[in-house]
């Protein structure tokens, strides 16, 4: 059982506080991070991956009992990160890009080839292995990113808007894939698309202006709604509808 523990995490950008005393413990399973833009979801993800540093003496992140900052490379070896939609190296082929990622993840050179073909198959890109990323559609690029996050069998998977730009069929495939893998790893998914996590998330964390305003299983959260129609969409509108 893996455990990611976050205690009293704070982050400022200049005078603006992006994250306020964030405290939470994640264990194996899927967690959905919900919240409008500026809620602090991406900041939280970047703090976990180590792309950002928390304010000085303001909060710590522990992976299986050890501080991630101290673990450094050893922590990042367990990590699979998929940032929000972004550009890739257009002149590289999908295989080359994943080869580059495999090298940066420190995966064995010989085994990497097999891993790459496997993840490409999982995201249904096996036919585009040797095609240049520059010619890919937005959805294909998104799947390359997912494949890169899955390389090396991570124990902690962090995904920022993973299904953005995917067609309904691809969404289902990715949802199933994530759901299957979540049995032995922690998956944190930030999304605006409620249906992506509605049925698979073990727990939902509702965030607003850098704080947790609510958390629990989907059922627990919707049960608390003071409305007749109890679903996740109404829950979202209840908390963020005025924004």
């Amino acid at each position, binding site marked *: 059982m893996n455990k990611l523990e976050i205690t009293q995490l704070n982050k400022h950008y200049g005078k603006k506080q992006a994250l306020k005393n964030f405290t939470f413990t994640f264990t194996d399973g899927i967690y959905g991070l919900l919240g409008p833009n500026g809620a602090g979801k991406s900041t939280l993800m970047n703090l976990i991956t180590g792309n950002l*540093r928390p304010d000085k003496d303001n909060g710590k992140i522990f992976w299986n009992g050890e501080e991630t900052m101290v673990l450094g490379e050893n922590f990042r070896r367990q990590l699979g990160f998929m940032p929000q939609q972004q550009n890739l190296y257009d002149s590289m082929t999908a295989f080359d890009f994943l080869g580059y990622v495999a090298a940066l993840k420190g995966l064995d050179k010989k085994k990497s080839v097999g891993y790459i073909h496997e993840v490409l198959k999982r995201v249904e890109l096996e036919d585009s292995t040797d095609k240049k990323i520059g010619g890919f559609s937005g959805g294909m690029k998104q799947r390359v990113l997912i494949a890169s996050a899955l390389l090396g069998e991570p124990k902690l998977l962090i995904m920022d808007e993973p299904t953005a730009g995917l067609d309904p069929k691809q969404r289902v495939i990715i949802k199933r894939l994530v759901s299957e893998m979540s049995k032995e790893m922690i998956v944190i998914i930030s999304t605006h698309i409620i249906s992506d996590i509605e049925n698979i998330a073990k727990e939902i964390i509702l965030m607003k202006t850098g704080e947790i305003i609510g958390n629990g299983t989907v059922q627990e959260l919707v049960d608390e709604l003071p409305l007749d129609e109890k679903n996740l969409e109404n829950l979202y509108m209840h908390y963020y509808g005025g924004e």
Partner: protein
Amino acid sequence: MRVLIYELKKLISYRAFLFISLVCIVMGALSSINNIRTADPAPGDYKRIASEIANMSESEAQEFFQQQFDEIFSEHPENSQYSGVAVSNSKTQFDLISGYGEFLDSIKENCKSITSISIFADKDSFAYRNTSKIEQAYENIKIKTLPLDVSQGVENILNNNISDILILFTIFAAAIFIFTKDKEIGIINLLYSYPKGRSRLCLNKIGALFFITVILNLLFMAVLTIISISTYGLGDLSRPIQSVNGYLECNFNFSVGEYLVVSLIFKILGSFLWSILFALICILSSNNAQIYGVSALISVTEVLLYNNISRISNFGLLHDFNLVSFIKPDNIFFTYRNLNIFGYPVNALLIISAVWLILTVAVLISVNVIYAGGKNQEYKRIHISIRKHSSAKVHKRLNYAFRKSLFLQGSLVVIVIWAVLLSMYHYNFSKPASPYDMYYKQYTTDYAGPINENTFNIIKQDEQYFADLDSKMMNGEFTTSEMNNYQSEQNRKSAFEDFKLRVEAIEDIDNTEIFYDLGYIRAFCVNSSDEFKEMALLIIFICALIISPLISYDNGRKLTTIIYSTTTGKKSYIKRNILITLIYTAAASFAVMIPYYINILLKYGTQGGNLPINSIKAFASFPIPITVWQFALGLFILRTILFSLISLIMLAVSFKSKSRFTAVLINITIFVIPAVCIWL
């Protein structure tokens, strides 16, 4: 190693980088060929002269040179076997290397005499220690005589400033591609989350940069070597380096071949320091404009310090511990010299190498720590958030177009850097002090005004004076002092001849007058178009940089499809960009040419501005009756129109290009590179 290979693959996959490298190599080759062509009409003559005297004794060789000079200065110089330049340079070189033994003896004697002079004889003084070390250093030289062989080919490889600049520029481009592309496309966050995505990735990127630095240095040297071999030839590579021009005082027992290798290694190491410095700038900068600005500032400062501070001045350390010095191995090897470090003489080679090592290690650590620390990423975010809060005003379309060009496309920074370079260009304007100018000014000032009897009388009088001088000279009636006077009077004669020709050319034209016109002759490029070429290059260069992105920037973001669909549409958008192009070009033209005209007027005076342009000999038959001022204005307008046409073609390239990078590169290739080649 795998990551390094991927980094190299990535770099090579950028077509723009390959294009820049190729263009720089071609430019290096063209400039080298041009230098050889202008310096030597027959570069092959050096090889022939060297082989001719290879087996001659010193006196036979001197006789051979005398024979060649006699042929060159005979009534039929066209019959001479070799070009005058080649004979003269070979003779100078031969005299130098013939005296090599005496040179070594003179060093010993100098050292002895210096150590015996009472003020230097203090054994604890720097001068004493230095002298002793110099004596020891030259005692190690095994060779005593030097052969004459072709020097110019080796010199062309070793002392090629343009190639050095082009290598650095290409390395700069490589550093940008390796270190900023990840930031630019926004993938750095992802890379940073990988186990080897920080310090290890940074080291691999530095490795890739080093590899490219080696390759570029090798490529440039190979091109120069091929050119040298096919023109001058390199001569015997096993001969001592001291036999090459400028290396007589070198105290190492290197052969020419060995020195070429040592020089290449030094250049590689020196340019590697530059490359990691560029990498540091790339990491610390949050946008491309900062990278170009800071890099240009550092490079220009270093070049100015290197060129303007002598190594023997009180600030000599700024010359030696200079980034330029690290890519100039000659600065270390051309002679044996020590630097004064707390009263102790330390060999320049040792201390410059030590400084290189310290700087390289310091920059390498900084690059690694800053890259792995990722502080620049946070800075970028804050930077963006500040921008978001900027003014919420709505502006006119033209205003937006200018703002987009100046701020989003980074033209403002380019303009600021260009303005600094331009002010240096104008600041360095000078009027050469020549005796001809002095005499010509005397004639045209003393006899300024309409041409009259007095003018003709003076012409007759001076004509007679110079005829008498010439006849005395022919008859050998001069004493030594009169002979010297005759030589200096030749300048006055030359000025008089031009004055006379001008009078003859304009005497029948109404309202023309004599006035001192050398300033106008220079401004209107009558005798040389070099300055106009320089100014044209400055204007074309800035236009290429700021006009190329105008439309291509929007094309790259597919914004033109949105812009064309608006009410004002495509026509208005293009019209606006044409207007901006014309404004930029006019402003650049104004900034370059008007201060130049003002400098001319300040140095040469404003006399004659209201007189007809026909008063100047070169324009005596100019058909339009206008004054000198009007002509200057017309010329300025015509030149501006010419540059505007060029700029409009640049805009057309921008219109057709899908990325601003491509547009800049195409415009540089079509306009700037030919302008550079013409200027060189």
